[in-house]
């Protein structure tokens, strides 16, 4: 598959931070609602410290903010609307480029029939 023009587009920095599955998952969880680091930590089979580290990477990419509430640190998604929309559109883009690749496979297989 050849991808043209993608390089011409401004690549959103957030995808560096989102290259990791766990961080992507954390980010998805906190987009709509604030969650404490400890409740996030409960969701993964890794240490509290490891989850905290992932949160820090997201924080450095300005994808999340942390807010202290009593003894808890609440993680909020922090994505300006356009960046959030871009991220969502990128996800659909992935879906469609995958579809195009599969269509090409189907057409290739049946090429001898035409």
């Amino acid at each position, binding site marked *: *598959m*050849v*991808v*043209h*023009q*993608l*390089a011409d587009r401004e*690549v*959103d920095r957030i*995808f*560096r931070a*989102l*290259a990791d599955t766990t961080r*992507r998952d954390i980010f*998805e969880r906190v*987009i*709509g609602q604030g969650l404490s680091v400890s409740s996030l930590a409960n969701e993964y089979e890794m240490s509290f410290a490891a989850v905290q580290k992932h949160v820090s990477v997201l924080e450095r990419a300005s994808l999340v903010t942390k807010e202290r509430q009593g003894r808890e640190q609440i993680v909020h998604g922090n994505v300006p*609307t*356009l*960046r*959030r*929309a*871009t991220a*969502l*559109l*990128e*996800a*659909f*883009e*992935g*879906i*469609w*480029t*995958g*579809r*195009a*690749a*599969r*269509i*090409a*496979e*189907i*057409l290739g297989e*049946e*090429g001898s029939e*035409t």
Partner: protein
Amino acid sequence: MTIISTVTDPEVLSLTVVAEFAASPERVWGVWEDPRLLERWWGPPSYPATFTRHDFAVGGESRYYMTGPEGDTSHGYWRMVAIDAPKRLEFANGLAGDDGEPVRDVEPMAAFVAFELIDGGTRMTALTTFVDEAQMKKMLDMGMSEGMTQAVSQIDGLL
């Protein structure tokens, strides 16, 4: 197959993907019209789609579900708005409940697909427009991980 371009417009919430195939427009049209071919590409490999109904006529509706790695299913539907074989089709693509019937409180996505005869094949342009972020998120729950993974791997290649 060549992806010619992908354009995302976050201001109006639209996505345009242009791809070229080394096959006639009739054959490319066929992968949309024939539900057995359609279900081989509509869903990602981790969430293959099964079309239980595919009324490929104006006003006609389709019902499908996607099956995840753990046997989980999510349902969706199409409603055909315009069909001009083998040049253009337009349909609404929405969420359905566990009973397979459309969920009314989530607006469907609008899809416009054009097929052009080009030298040596077909250029297919697929435009999807969205209503708002809430709708996009709900729709993404169907095969979310796959889409994100692919988008991210493309971006990673450029960094």
